[in-house]
């Protein structure tokens, strides 16, 4: 079975005042049709850059895809023309952003904006498109959709706006939906509704989802498979249950252990000391070594490669040498 999206050995660099830095370092991921891949990590680990590269939305300059390939349905995206990328965006792959207020245009009604998205990719009259827009608003759980379609974004709550974004994203039935921290700006009860909606949409439309998040709880509820990223590299990749129940990489371990859980009230949380190093200070070794309790000389010298050491693929010398 070939994957719907296949990213292999992707390198993305950015020119900054510290010189050229590597934002994505040999990232390989795949997403099968109809499944959800969770991409998890702290801010600055490269998860949003990965999403933007797939959409062809890396700001260039200063950004640049320096190597590797992104194949959507077998079609190479890194070399595709801007016109072809525009045609694919929305129709084949769509994106839901973190902040629904700034991703919607404040001067048009939400119905217009969805209809616009439909007319961009399908032959439909304005009336047909607007009717479709209303149907979509209904589908994403907006009450009285025909009046809401005539509302402007500021008249809707944050949760409603995110539903509108989802309606717009699925308007052309894309095969791939990228959700970049879709609930970070929302309240928990609304977040739960959005997660439930995304899972439903996936069942109904058969779309594959890439969920970008920093929250292992969201991974548990949403993802079939997980890629854990750190400092621009994938450091662990497996089925969601495997990562959650048997995390291999010390960083993945830390991410799970440091969450204050609703279900238990520990006295002390496990901490990951220190912070993510800035990209321009990455050395030759493992980027996590400075924060890792199991690091040795080899870790500071040599970058570990994502390999299966018995359980599932992980990039860690300590696991390879069975020191862990």
């Amino acid at each position, binding site marked *: 079975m070939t994957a719907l999206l296949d990213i292999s050995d992707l390198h993305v660099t950015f020119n900054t005042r510290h010189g050229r830095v590597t934002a994505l370092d040999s990232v390989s991921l795949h997403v099968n049709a109809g499944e959800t891949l969770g991409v998890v990590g702290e801010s600055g680990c490269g998860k949003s850059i990965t999403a933007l590269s797939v959409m062809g939305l890396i700001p260039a300059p200063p950004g640049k895809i320096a190597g590797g390939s992104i194949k959507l349905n077998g079609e190479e995206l890194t070399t595709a023309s801007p016109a072809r990328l525009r045609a694919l965006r929305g129709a084949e792959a769509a994106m839901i952003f973190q902040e629904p207020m700034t991703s919607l245009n404040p001067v048009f009604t939400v119905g217009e904006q969805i209809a616009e998205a439909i007319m961009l990719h399908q032959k439909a009259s304005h009336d047909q498109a607007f009717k479709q827009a209303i149907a979509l608003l209904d589908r994403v759980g907006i009450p009285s959709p025909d009046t809401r379609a005539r509302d402007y974004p500021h008249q809707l709550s944050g949760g409603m706006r995110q539903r509108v974004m989802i309606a717009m994203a699925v308007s052309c039935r894309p095969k791939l939906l990228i959700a970049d921290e879709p609930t970070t700006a929302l309240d928990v009860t609304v977040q739960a509704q959005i997660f439930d909606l995304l899972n439903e949409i996936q069942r109904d439309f058969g779309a594959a989802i890439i969920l970008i998040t920093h929250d292992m709880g969201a991974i548990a509820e949403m993802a079939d498979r997980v890629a854990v990223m750190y400092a621009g590299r994938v450091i662990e990749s497996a089925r*969601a249950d495997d990562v959650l129940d048997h995390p291999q990489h010390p960083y993945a371990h830390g991410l799970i252990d440091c969450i204050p859980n609703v279900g238990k009230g520990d006295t002390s949380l496990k901490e990951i000391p220190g912070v993510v190093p800035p990209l321009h200070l990455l050395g030759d070794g493992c980027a996590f070594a400075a924060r890792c309790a199991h690091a040795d000389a080899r870790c500071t010298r040599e970058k570990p490669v994502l390999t299966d050491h018995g359980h599932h693929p992980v990039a860690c010398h300590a696991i390879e040498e069975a020191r862990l």
Partner: protein
Amino acid sequence: MTAPLLEVRDLTVRFALPRPRPFGPRPYLEAVRSVSFTLAKGRALGIVGESGSGKTTTAMSAIRLAPAASGQVLMNGTDLLALDEDAMRRQRKDIGLIFQDPYSSLNPRARVADIVREPLDLMNIGTPATRMDRVRTLFTRVGLREDQLNLFPHQFSGGQRQRISIARALTTNPQLLVCDEPVSALDVAIQAQILNLLGHLKTELGLSYLFISHDLGVVRHVCDDVAVMYLGKIVESAPVERLFTQPQHPYTQALLSAAPSLKRRKSQGYARAMQITGDPPSPINPPQGCAFAGRCPKAQSRCRSERPEMKVAGDHKIACHFPA
């Protein structure tokens, strides 16, 4: 139970809205509606709720950083709301405050040593030399280094800035620390570091916390007692274990089942214990009966017409007609 440090009685906060027509009566928004709670010495009281629930406004008006319309706030028996400006200013040395956003809570044009020392300058405590000693002690205590004293806020990471904020709040040896979403802007791994620091400080210095958060996991980790707010009112309050294991109010139950949990897995086809729809109603025009009735799966006609009174059962208080 020890003597209360802070006792809030019937606190109400109103915001003036623009007049609908010139010289017409001015409408008011009741952000906090007759809220009462008690914070005992050495304990941490969590106030949880979603955006718009009035949790931050409650805390801010309790310590007179936002004007209260009516009510009493007794700190060690003195009513803060009745103090004159100068007396209140002197009282501030007993109250520390930590903010949500580590990027906007520190003056960008001041060196961090000056930021941490300023409370002592303003309260005229000690000599310049002893003040600097205190700053150095605090700096090391919150996990920063002395060689960072002369730097400016933008030279620190989010977690480090939150440590500076904590140091500033502790400078004058306060009895009460008001924490307004202190970790919600931080990455998960950094959250754990700050939460552990807050935990250690509490036992070490015998501090009391008024802890505002939307994150139930964080509250369970830090707090001894919890009050749940919805649309300007406390709907349930109890000791933390009791609230998390035996929630009585449907809204508390909904919050708990909405919080992402590592235990709810997509692979096992999760189901939420309780699912609620929609968004909270607008505080400009609050519903006549129970504010939660519109979203509550258990609501009956009585809930829509009659506001539930707070019922007290030991240390568990619930405002619901049909608690379970």
